[in-house]
């Protein structure tokens, strides 16, 4: 750009659907992802040797044949890595020591001169195992007689809000106690209870995990030399912190670089295989070591969404007021629960879903199972628990003869309600979301089916979700001006496709008073140069990083106004910046930003100069979240806020085949403030299809825990042919007190309740309830046959 002032520009971009800042790079193929980075001829390749058993003791590992193979540079095993790693519960060996706990667990890492040699050599590593009985069902796994996966659970370091039960497979138990549930049941006119089961599913980003580790030759505990990890990451700073602790490297010498991320959905949050590349590189200092997951490894060797068994009982009175709820959630956390423990906790403190229920007894458990590692996935526990809750709400409404949408309007949380943990919920308008979503599918009107063997049905489901995180995750931002008044915004948050960089550029431009087109957001994120960010998770970036960017931009603006005010002999209070020009409301003087933002301005009569390069800094950290009582889950402020929304589904079932044709999904969320309305629509559309797809997805295992479908043919995700006939997106704007311009996040929420909304519509169409996922045409067809036979 020769002269930004002459380009077309967008003033005051907040609230406008400006184009994505990253689109040009991505449509031309020039956007760089981790696998695209070039490392030259010194690059070595890594391959992991993985456990063939779900649960076994390691008796011996023989690496000598592999080491003898020409081109093999090193073989690393658990004996070379003594410490565990983990986010909330430090339970995971980087390479297995003594014991393996799932099929696919890394046991050794081979480093070689080429991918082929690494792959061949990996097959020459021989491991002797002694098989142990395994645990696959989380509820059975929680029982005292279950085979124990982690005898050392009591010795692991753990965050002070996570409560494992040593001597069992329970890695977290969250208890919610409010009111008197036992007394309340007798006042209920209608009570519905059910058991709901959800399988493990996978994120299936189109980009598999790639990690490249490098130890500089001189890297040591001293101050010289770096250890670097290049990877596709939602969490460069968290990965740096966890590796620094586990491997004993000073944070200042440990560098994590994340270029563009080809889809995350939680699967690239926290830390999984990335650290393996770093410990393998330690064995060949001076050489970068690249570890790239095959699609099969992506399915079983990174992380998955946890499975769930939920027992839920809810009751209401004759007028439709919810009175009591009792629930047990058993999350199948897989072999290591370092991140997953917080999913069970989040499901515990939000266990009622978006409803005001005065009497609640909730128990949420995370349970070790001999399966792939359960970790963060879009929705973080909420899609799992809403699957059951939202079906029970429909059944309760039916029992007392109330419209299910009206039942939800009556009982859903409203601004300032005191919710289940005892906190007052910050401003939300869920009723408006329900109204808009149901109106969009002509709720209450029945539709003609397209053929005599097809039946139409409609369903609604609502949701809530709070960012699930430690009480004090921080964000920081730096705003730097260049000579031509273009602006570089540095953040440690990542754009995973959700549009974070675009939204940050909009916020910076708005707060500075410069056009959107003048702002760039620095990529890659690099912990050596980018300011701190906890993680790009929890739908917290628009809100948290947005606050930091706004603060940094306001800091830069203040510096500019002070210089110009001094130059004019005016009060900064009388000055403003618009479209990149400083002006005075009082004197009507004008000063373009070009050059002065770096060189400053001369004093009167050129008696010296004022100002200098403008660099603004900003930060944000919530300071008000409190701990919750261990016995009751009660506390002043459990979470920062909630985002709420409603989805309504209109579908048609082919009774000859059981096939589901989703005709329309209406999806409406309270976003606080739509910083970029069209980007919200693209989240809503992508989320609706992701949510629909998730209803059909499952990872299958045989009775020994061997994965049966770790590929994209046998584990199908939605294709272009599967898209609903119409996705109607909309939003409500109830400003959040501490959101930038009132905004809150919405990226995960948009898939949370699609599956239960479909289940309610399926019931409306054919009168059959499905309590277990996945759904399939076969399952529906067989249930229809059974119903016919029974009638």
């Amino acid at each position, binding site marked *: 750009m020769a002269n930004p002032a002459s380009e077309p520009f967008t003033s005051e971009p907040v609230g406008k659907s400006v*184009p*994505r800042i*990253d*689109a*040009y*790079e*991505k*449509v*031309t*193929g*020039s*956007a*760089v*992802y981790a*696998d*695209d980075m*070039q490392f030259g001829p010194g690059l070595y390749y890594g391959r992991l040797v993985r456990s063939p058993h779900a649960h076994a003791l390691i008796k011996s590992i023989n690496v000598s044949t592999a080491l003898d193979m020409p081109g093999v540079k090193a073989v690393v095993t658990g004996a070379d890595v003594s410490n565990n790693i983990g986010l909330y519960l430090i339970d995971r060996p980087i390479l297995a020591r003594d014991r393996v706990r799932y099929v696919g667990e890394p046991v050794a890492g081979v480093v070689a001169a080429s991918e082929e040699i690494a792959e061949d050599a990996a097959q020459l590593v021989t491991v002797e195992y002694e098989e142990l009985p395994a645990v696959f069902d989380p509820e059975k796994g929680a029982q005292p007689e279950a085979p124990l996966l982690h005898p050392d659970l009591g010795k692991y370091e753990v965050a002070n809000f996570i409560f494992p039960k040593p001597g069992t497979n329970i890695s977290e138990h969250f208890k919610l106690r409010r009111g008197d549930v036992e007394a309340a049941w007798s006042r209920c006119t209608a009570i519905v209870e059910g058991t709901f089961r959800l399988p493990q599913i996978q*994120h*299936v*980003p*189109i*980009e*598999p995990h790639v990690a490249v580790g490098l130890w500089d030759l001189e890297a040591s505990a001293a101050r010289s030399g770096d250890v670097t990890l290049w990877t596709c990451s939602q969490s460069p700073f968290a990965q740096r912190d966890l590796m620094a602790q586990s491997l004993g490297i000073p944070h200042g010498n440990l560098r994590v670089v994340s270029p*563009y*991320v*080809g*889809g*995350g*959905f939680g699967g690239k949050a926290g830390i999984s295989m990335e650290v393996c590349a770093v410990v393998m590189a330690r064995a060949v200092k001076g050489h970068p070591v690249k570890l790239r997951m*095959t*699609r099969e490894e992506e399915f079983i060797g990174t992380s998955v969404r946890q499975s769930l068994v939920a027992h839920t009982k809810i009751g209401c009175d004759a007028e439709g007021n919810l009175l009591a709820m009792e629930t047990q959630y058993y999350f199948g956390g897989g072999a290591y629960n370092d991140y997953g423990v917080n999913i069970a906790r989040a499901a515990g403190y939000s266990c009622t879903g978006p409803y005001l229920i005065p009497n609640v007894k909730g128990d949420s458990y995370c349970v070790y199972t001999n399966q792939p590692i359960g970790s963060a996935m879009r929705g973080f526990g909420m899609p799992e628990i809403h699957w059951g809750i939202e079906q029970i709400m429909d059944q309760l409404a039916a029992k007392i003869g109330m419209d299910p949408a009206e039942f939800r309007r009556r009982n859903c949380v409203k601004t300032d309600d005191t919710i289940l943990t005892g906190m007052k919920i910050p401003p939300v308008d869920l009723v408006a979301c329900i109204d808009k979503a149901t109106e969009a599918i002509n709720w209450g009107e029945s539709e003609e089916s397209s053929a005599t063997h097809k039946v139409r049905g409609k369903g609604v489901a609502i949701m809530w979700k709070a960012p699930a995180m430690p009480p004090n995750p921080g964000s920081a931002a730096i705003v730097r001006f260049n000579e031509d008044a273009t602006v570089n915004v540095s953040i440690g948050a990542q754009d*995973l*496709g*959700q*549009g974070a960089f675009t939204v940050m550029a909009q916020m910076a431009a708005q707060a500075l008073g410069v056009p959107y087109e003048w702002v760039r957001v620095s990529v890659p994120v690099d912990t050596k140069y980018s300011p701190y960010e906890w993680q790009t998770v929890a739908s917290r970036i628009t809100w948290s990083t947005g606050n930091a960017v706004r603060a940094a931009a306001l800091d830069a603006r203040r510096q500019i106004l002070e210089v110009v005010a001094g130059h004019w002999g005016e009060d900064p209070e009388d000055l403003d910046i618009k479209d990149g020009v400083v002006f005075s409301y009082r004197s009507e003087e004008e000063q373009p930003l070009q050059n002065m933002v770096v060189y400053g301005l001369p004093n009167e009569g050129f008696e010296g100069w004022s100002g200098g390069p403008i660099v603004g800094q900003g930060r944000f950290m919530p300071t008000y979240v409190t701990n919750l009582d261990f016995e009751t889950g009660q506390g002043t402020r459990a979470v920062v806020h909630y985002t709420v929304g409603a989805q309504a589904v209109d579908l048609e079932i082919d009774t000859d085949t059981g096939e589901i044709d989703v005709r329309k999904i209406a999806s409406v969320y309270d976003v606080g403030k739509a910083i970029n309305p*069209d*980007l919200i629509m*693209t989240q809503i*559309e*992508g*989320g*609706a*299809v*992701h949510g629909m797809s998730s209803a059909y997805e499952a990872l299958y295992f045989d009775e020994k825990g061997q994965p049966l479908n770790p*590929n*994209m*043919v046998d584990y199908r*995700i*939605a*294709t*272009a*042919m599967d*898209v609903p006939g119409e*996705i109607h997106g909309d939003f409500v704007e109830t400003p959040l007190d501490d959101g930038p311009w009132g905004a809150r996040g919405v990226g995960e929420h948009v898939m949370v309740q699609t599956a239960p909304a479909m289940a309610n519509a399926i019931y409306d169409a054919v009168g059959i309830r499905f309590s277990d996922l996945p759904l399939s045409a076969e399952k529906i067809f067989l249930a229809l046959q059974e119903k016919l036979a029974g009638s």
Partner: protein
Amino acid sequence: MTTHAITLTVNGAKERLDVPSNLTLLQMLRDKLALTGTKNGCEAGECGACTVLLDGEPVNSCMMLAVEADGREVITVEGLAPDGGLSPLQEAFMAHNAVQCGFCTPGMLISATALLERNPEPTEGEIKEALVGNLCRCTGYVRIVDAVQAAASEGGA
């Protein structure tokens, strides 16, 4: 491993390369020619991220050997607008926010380009059918289909 000398045209440029027998077209493009716009998502012909045009037909470059491209013409995402501008489809993908994480985008653009070459006025159903081999986990495909329709109505790939 035996190597073979092959000549082919890639994005309009004539190339001569020595390639091992087992090198895939995808590996050749990414590792020998540094055309990293073509993505590796599964190496099994399942996701479509590696789609390129071979003599005008869309193929999964992970499922072909480099030697099979001997004497043929390959177009990758980098070659869709060789003059340094953008193709109508690339413009439409930008205008319709059809891009999120961007990892499926190159393959999508290639498949859509091939579609519009053989069928300049596709229906919505024909577009979806043509893109069924290109998986996307972010967008829900809605804007991608919109963008292809818009590019078609403006008269070109």
